[in-house]
């Protein structure tokens, strides 16, 4: 039977880690992800997990250690965020290139400078081309559920690609919520036994891990790697359905909220989607046809599925909690705008950057966005394609 527990986002991830009990946890503490690692360290000290817990001298070393342990044949996880993820950078690409299904809990936090410890998506968005699967969580329950599913998705033989689960720094990582924690045995069964492919510790089979590739092989190996993440959508769908069947909470690529007859739609990920739902409810009560689409999976990007929902809207606002300086819009926006290009009937679309460095986004801001969308829908004219929310101008 599942139990209702009061946990914050970090404890929720740690709880999932305790239940899955990976062979190796290698992590270096960084705000606001520290308490994931801290809690796992306590589990280890209390004898509640059997896996190795290692705290090396940096995040770069933590990810290097994960790569070594996963190459050896272990089920491996880590947790970090912000500068910590940035310091892992070159190793992220290596984990993906070597097709090691490492799972990382990433507590989303802004990047320096200026230094700031609060939540935004700059860290994981910066890692969007590293080859990792990216799944984002709205609340503590989703952080727990996503973290469990991430192992199954990453480890699937057609995928074998590392996966990260994002949860917003402080807003989710440090907020207490009542969450359903499933039985240890059921989670262990759901996660299943991990079977490594070509583990280094199998000394009967001679092999070289990470050989050099020049102009003659690098391209083919990269194409081979791309296939792994391109196989992920089918697996993400299956695992999300199975999770729903087993535990009553089904997951897909995104969540649609009151989009059925919506004429305008707001797209926003992670914790802000919760606030947006309240705003949508209020606007619906006033008779306004507003909906919300909350992407859950950002890599692989479910471009066709998202476009199929948004194509019938009159106007869409994509809200990004990161910026891509000098680009034509922030990351989520460029993906979605590009996804809609092939549809002859498509909505007007605008981009707003919000919440950098943990800046609040409130119901009133979503209402402002909705009224701008209504004006665009009515006039068919976009005056400002790219803007900022709750910024002192």
């Amino acid at each position, binding site marked *: 039977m599942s139990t209702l527990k009061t946990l914050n986002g970090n404890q929720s991830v740690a709880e999932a880690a305790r239940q899955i009990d990976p062979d190796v946890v290698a992590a270096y503490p960084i705000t606001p992800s520290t308490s994931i690692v801290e809690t796992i360290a306590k589990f280890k000290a209390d004898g509640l997990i059997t896996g190795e817990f290692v705290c090396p001298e940096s995040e770069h070393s933590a990810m290097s250690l994960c790569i070594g342990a996963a190459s050896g044949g272990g089920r491996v996880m880590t947790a970090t965020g912000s500068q910590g993820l940035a310091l892992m950078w070159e190793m992220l690409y290596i984990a993906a*290139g070597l097709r090691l299904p490492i799972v990382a809990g990433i507590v989303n936090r802004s990047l320096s400078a200026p230094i700031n410890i609060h939540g935004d998506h700059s860290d994981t968005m910066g890692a969007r081309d590293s080859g990792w699967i990216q799944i984002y969580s709205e609340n503590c329950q989703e952080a727990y559920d996503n973290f469990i599913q991430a192992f199954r998705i990453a480890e699937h033989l057609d995928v074998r690609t590392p996966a990260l689960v994002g949860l917003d720094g402080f807003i989710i990582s440090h907020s207490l919520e009542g969450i359903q924690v499933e039985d240890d045995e059921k989670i262990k069964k759901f996660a299943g036994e991990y079977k490594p492919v*070509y583990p280094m510790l199998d000394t009967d089979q001679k*092999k070289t*891990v*990470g050989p050099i590739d020049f102009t003659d092989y690098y391209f083919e*190996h990269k194409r081979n790697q791309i296939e792994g993440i391109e196989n992920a959508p089918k697996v993400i769908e299956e695992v999300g359905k199975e999770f729903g069947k087993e535990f009553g909470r089904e997951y897909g690529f995104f969540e649609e909220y009151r989009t059925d007859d919506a004429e305008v739609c707001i797209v926003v990920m992670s914790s802000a989607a919760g606030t947006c739902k309240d705003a949508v409810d209020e606007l619906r009560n006033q008779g306004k046809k507003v909906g919300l689409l909350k992407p859950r999976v950002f890599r692989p990007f479910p471009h066709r599925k998202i476009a199929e929902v948004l194509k019938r809207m009159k106007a869409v606002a994509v809200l990004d909690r990161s910026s891509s300086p000098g680009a034509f819009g922030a990351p989520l926006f460029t993906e979605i705008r590009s996804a809609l290009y092939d549809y002859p009937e498509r909505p007007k679309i605008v981009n707003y950057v919000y919440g950098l460095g943990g800046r609040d986004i409130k119901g009133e801001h979503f209402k402002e966005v909705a009224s701008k969308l209504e004006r665009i829908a009515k006039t068919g004219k976009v005056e400002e394609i790219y803007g900022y929310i709750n910024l002192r101008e």
Partner: protein
Amino acid sequence: MKKETWKELTLGTINLNAGNSVQNLTGTWRSGKKPQFIEDKCIQCFFCWLYCPHHAIEVQGEEVKGIKYDYCTGCGMCSEVCPPKEKAIVMVKEEIKLAERSSK
């Protein structure tokens, strides 16, 4: 040697044919100079064997016997570290025969 397509490659860039670097004839990189071994000057110190980056020093039994030209890149390291005043390895000019090498 036929090269695999991306679909035929082993997962995660793993090379299951460990030790296949012997197939890579790095001697084809040599251009202009090659080391020449003068056996009666050699004091069997093994410095050349220790320093050679491509394991191109020929050892038979427990003695240095010469150079494996299939792997020698002509870098000159062996000659540089060779200790006798009259060196046992000297760099000499070599005519490049690209056609001959690529046929290997």
